[in-house]
Every structure is written in structure tokens, then in C-alpha cells.
């Protein structure tokens, strides 16, 4: 009986280099996506920074003011619509129904997402600032509309409240944030193109 030997098969060098085909495919995949992976890493760093900021006492100090302002604007909007509502901090109430703007209803997570994406995307700084300002303003207005519609649904069609609160508005906010981002990228590309054309 011969001695058994452990034998290790060496990876075969392929035509394109020393790496075996499987590794080559992986390397190619990563090489093709290197700028995208840089973008993803930078985006996550900015998002982590914003999340860390949300844990600071300064943010905790600002947040109630933001929630109260949202409630105040919603109350004004409901008055325009003819509702007899009253304000108590971040709560809007009437004889018929009441809603409270809690930190979960602030829609700030969508603003962070938008801010991180716009900051990381390569464009001119004044375009980024314009995008961030208009994006945050748009989300704040949408949030006022969200709270107002939830109040109105609470007094007119209470059975639909959970559906609108848990399904319709979150999906609408995700859609709007991404559509805004796509539109902003399209706008910057268009401006880039027209400026290149003008300089040529």
C-alpha cells in the first residue's frame, strides 16, 4: 500500500492574469463598481454623522421646537380649511379628534437621506445647497399635509386612519424623496450639459 499524500491543486493561471476565473469575475465586478462603492461609503459616512448628531443634546433641544412648528403650521392650514382646531404644544385637538406630532412623525429621516445623497453627489456647491434647502422645505410641507390629512381622516373616515398613516403616507414620502433626488440629478446634469455646450 502506498502512502497517501495530501495534494493541493494550484489555481490555474488564466489568460488575463494569475487569478483563477472565479476571482477574476469578482475583481471585474468590483472594478466596474469602484466609483459606486466610493459613493456608497461616503454616503454612509455622512448618514452616520447625521445619525450621531441626532443623539446629541443640541438635536434633542431643537427637535421639540421643530415638532411644535409643524403642529402650528398644520393648525393654521386646518383653520384655512375651516376646521375649529386648537393647539397644545405638538398636539392639535378639537371636540371631534386630536393628533400629536411625535418624533416618529417628523419625517426627518427622509431629510437626512436627502441631505446625505445631495452632499455626496458630485455637483457644484451652490446647486447642492439649493437642492438641500428646497428638499427639506418640500418634505416639511409634505409633513404638514400629512398631519393635516391624518386629522381630517380621523374625523371623517376613522377606519381608514391606519391605512393612510402606516401605508399611504410612508410610501408617498419615499416616492417623493426619490423623485426629488432624481429630478435634482437630472437638473444638475442638464445644467452641466448646457454649460459645457456654451463654453464650447
Amino acid at each position, binding site marked *: 500500500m502506498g502512502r497517501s499524500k495530501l495534494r493541493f491543486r494550484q489555481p490555474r493561471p488564466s489568460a488575463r492574469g494569475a487569478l483563477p476565473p472565479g476571482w477574476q469575475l469578482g475583481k471585474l465586478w468590483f472594478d466596474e463598481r469602484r466609483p*459606486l462603492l466610493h459613493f456608497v461609503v461616503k454616503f454612509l459616512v455622512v448618514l452616520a454623522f447625521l445619525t450621531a448628531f441626532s443623539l446629541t443634546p443640541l438635536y434633542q433641544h431643537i427637535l421639540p421646537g421643530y415638532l411644535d412648528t409643524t403642529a402650528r403650521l398644520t393648525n393654521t392650514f386646518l383653520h384655512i380649511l375651516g376646521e375649529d382646531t386648537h393647539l397644545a404644544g405638538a398636539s392639535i385637538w378639537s371636540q371631534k379628534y386630536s393628533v400629536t406630532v411625535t418624533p*416618529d412623525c417628523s419625517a426627518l429621516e427622509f431629510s437626512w437621506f436627502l441631505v446625505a445623497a445631495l452632499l455626496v453627489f458630485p455637483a457644484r456647491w451652490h446647486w447642492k445647497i439649493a437642492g438641500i434647502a428646497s428638499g427639506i422645505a418640500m418634505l416639511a410641507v409634505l409633513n404638514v399635509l400629512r398631519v393635516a390629512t391624518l386629522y381630517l381622516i380621523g374625523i371623517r373616515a376613522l377606519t381608514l386612519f391606519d391605512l393612510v398613516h402606516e401605508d399611504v403616507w410612508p410610501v408617498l414620502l419615499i416616492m417623493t424623496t426619490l423623485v426629488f433626488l432624481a*429630478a435634482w440629478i437630472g437638473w444638475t446634469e442638464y445644467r452641466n450639459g448646457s454649460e459645457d455646450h456654451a463654453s464650447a
Partner: protein
Amino acid sequence: MLRRNSIVGCILWFVLVFGVLAAPWPGLRGACCNYLQGMVRTVLSSESGRRELDFEVSPNHKRGYDEARIVIVNRDLMTPNGSGPVRNLDIDLGTLGTRSLALLLALICATPFSWKRRGIAILLGIPFLHFFILALIAYCIWSESTEVQLVTLSPAMKEIANSLEERQLALFSIVVPVLVWVVVTFRRSDRTSLFTSMNAADNKKAR
């Protein structure tokens, strides 16, 4: 170069697909919740060790939410008759799973590439999404494990861990599908992609 007309078409396509897929179809979220619960049980639960994970139907099911209840048990704290402190973690797995999957599929479908590339992106994206859902749930379980002395954290660290858990849950549905879409769908060479300007900026820097 991105054309505005094509952007409008892509946006409309995205809104339509996402709206249809994210709608609360009867039974879909329940099925997704059961599927994800089974996956969490298979991957994160173990027969040995100090931590035991039990799975129950959340009381919120009665209110129409497809939530899973994960019961975290420290075996060291249990008495021989099986009683002891436990920590309940209620996660809306149905919404988390369906909404993030719907967003990923809508983004991929709305990207103006060939169907072959979109199909490959879907095949790559779904396992990535599963990985991140599992990672999120694993983090939530770890964070909640402090309540049954499986993990020891200082009060400040515990507060940070709890806050991060809330924020991660809120951000997950939008951040993870978008990032997975970016990585699995686009390539460096895509001139029609949104990264055209990124390459241009990189080239300017290199000069």
C-alpha cells in the same frame, strides 16, 4: 448624458411599480412576515449557548399589523420550571420586508437598461437585501439583549444603542434598497447613468 424626457419616463415607471408593489395586498405581508421569521429562526437562533430565541404571534396581529414577536431568553436566568425574565421584541417584519423589496424592484425596473441586466440586478439584489434585513434584526436582538443581561452596556451606551435601533428601523426602508440598487445595477461605464457626473468629477480631480 441623462435626458430629461427619459428621466420623466423612468420616474413615472418607478412611481407606478412602487405604488403597485407597496400596496397592502391581502395576505402578502403576512406571508412575508412568516417567511422572514422563518429565516431569522434558521440563521440567528441556536439550540446551545446562553441566548434562546422564541417566536410568537404578536398581539398587534389583531390590529391588522403583520408583526413578529421575538422573545429573547437568557437561559442562565431561567428557573428549572422554565420561568424567568424575557424580553419581547416586536418588529413589523411584513412591512419591512415587502416595502424594502418593493422599492428595490421598482428602482431596478425603472432603470433604463436591458431586461437581462435588470434581471441580473434583481438576482443579485434580493440576496443582498436579505443579508441587510438579517443584519438589522440581529442588531435589534443584540440591543434588546441588554434587558436580560445577555449583553452588558453602560447606561450611556445603552441609550445610544436604543436610539440607533429606532433610527435604523426608520431609515432602513429607504436607505438599504437604494444603496443595494446603486451597487447591483450600475457600472462604471454607464454613460446614461446618474454617475456620469461622478466620473467627470473624478477625472477632473485626477488631472
